């Protein structure tokens, strides 16, 4: 006969851990409070997915069916409630999240602010209404550059789009720098040091003498930079 006593199994060791949960505290009228949640979700969809949520019902007086209805509304919005606080235990049915108490407030990450920048279009044209002085370098890869005034010798304009100069161009103009071969350069008087469109360039040496003192446009024909008068 086995008289060995069975080893005593150790009692279950319980461990404690604290988690941070979001507290949803509905206020009257509940319908408005739910539409506030919808607003937040439209700006940051899925913000509450996977995040523990505790429902604090201390500010409202809800019957058991009303609590059930509220839990359903939140589930429809993909918000799963972990626990409920601020009510009597009698108000909760057995299939509802458990009653919880003893929480401490702490800071949580807020849903992202409405990014207004994404609503406005990025600027595609730069306007300068004073002369561009020698040594200044205007670089605008996003689009066209318009100068109301002259561009001095030793200055340069570099644009992703076209360059329009209502004055005399004495410096350098480089248009279509991001591969935009349809970009053009326009000026009221050409005394430029260098013109370039999409990398194809011509220096002042190669400009036709008949173009002097005339309104001029420069454009790319295949791989040749053409410069012709405008009037």
């Amino acid at each position, binding site marked *: 006969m086995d008289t060995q006593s069975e080893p005593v199994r150790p009692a279950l060791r319980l461990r404690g851990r604290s988690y941070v949960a979001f507290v949803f505290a509905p206020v009257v009228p509940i319908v408005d409070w739910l539409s506030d949640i919808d607003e937040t979700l439209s700006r940051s969809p899925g913000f509450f997915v996977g995040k523990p949520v505790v429902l604090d019902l201390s500010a409202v007086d809800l019957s058991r069916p009303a609590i059930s209805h509220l839990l359903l509304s939140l589930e429809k919005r993909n918000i799963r409630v972990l626990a409920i606080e601020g009510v009597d235990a009698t108000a909760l049915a057995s299939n509802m999240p458990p009653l919880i108490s003893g929480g401490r407030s702490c800071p949580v990450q807020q849903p992202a602010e409405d990014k207004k920048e994404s609503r406005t279009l990025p600027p595609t044209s730069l306007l300068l209404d004073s002369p561009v002085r020698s040594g200044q370098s205007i670089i605008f890869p996003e689009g066209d550059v318009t100068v109301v005034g002259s561009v*001095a010798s030793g200055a340069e304009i570099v644009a992703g789009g076209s360059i329009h100069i209502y004055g005399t161009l004495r410096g350098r103009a480089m248009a279509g720098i991001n591969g935009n071969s349809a970009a053009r350069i326009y000026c009221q008087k050409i005394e430029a040091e260098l013109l370039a469109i999409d990398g194809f360039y011509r220096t002042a040496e190669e400009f036709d003498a008949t173009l002097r003192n005339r309104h001029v446009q420069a454009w790319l024909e295949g791989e040749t930079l053409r410069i012709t008068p405008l009037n």
Partner: protein
Amino acid sequence: MAKVLVVTSGKGGVGKTTSTAAIGAALAQNGKRVAVVDFDVGLRNLDLVMGAERRVVFDLINVAQGIAKLPQALIRDKRLENLWLLPASQTRDKDALTDEGVGRVIAEMRSSFDYIVCDSPAGIERGAMLAMRFADEAVIVTNPEVSSVRDSDRIIGMLDSRTVKAEKGEQVGKHILITRYDAARAARGEMLGIEDVLEILAVPLLGIIPESQDVLRASNVGSPVTLNNPASAPARAYADATKRLLGETIAMTVPSERKGLMNLLRRRAA
């Protein structure tokens, strides 16, 4: 409160020091309390042109570094009692100047003078930058020839970006002073014409100073040209330019050495 005026050009040898002395003296003759300050550290010339080279004890660097007090360094002109000179150091160089040091000196001077005229060195490095940094107005001295005009344009760009006023979003008042103008050479096409210079620089014209041997004569005796020979063509031109700075409207003429020949040009605002 004083007005700080910088006389600058970019290009060297165009007449900044001559103009600083001449305009400084003319302002003093108009009853203003004027200090002319030499910012050309290591290559000082304003003391020579003002005739004060044998009275220099302390200089701008000494005051900026706190070694000397401002009244110890300021040299009073022997001819005009409301004209003072703050010389530059000859033994140091431009690296000894600092933003804070210069700022303190200018701030201290603002309360005792009506005009502080800063003689900038040539170039676009620290000396020139510090001379223009605290300016309210600028006189850009330009010779009517291509190198000088392009350098002046560069300096105008810097006046619009590297001064305290520009950083605050305000504008430094800018004026072009054309110096060493020779009407005959301009007529022959050897020099740029006034209209050409103004078209390129797009800044209002303050005055036209003709080329003259009086400038060298005045500097040899250590006197501003407006004091040495007030009847000479450059002296009359500087006097007119100074009056325009003070707000008077004077028809733009090129005073000529020869009597009876005048080029009348309307004052042009850009």
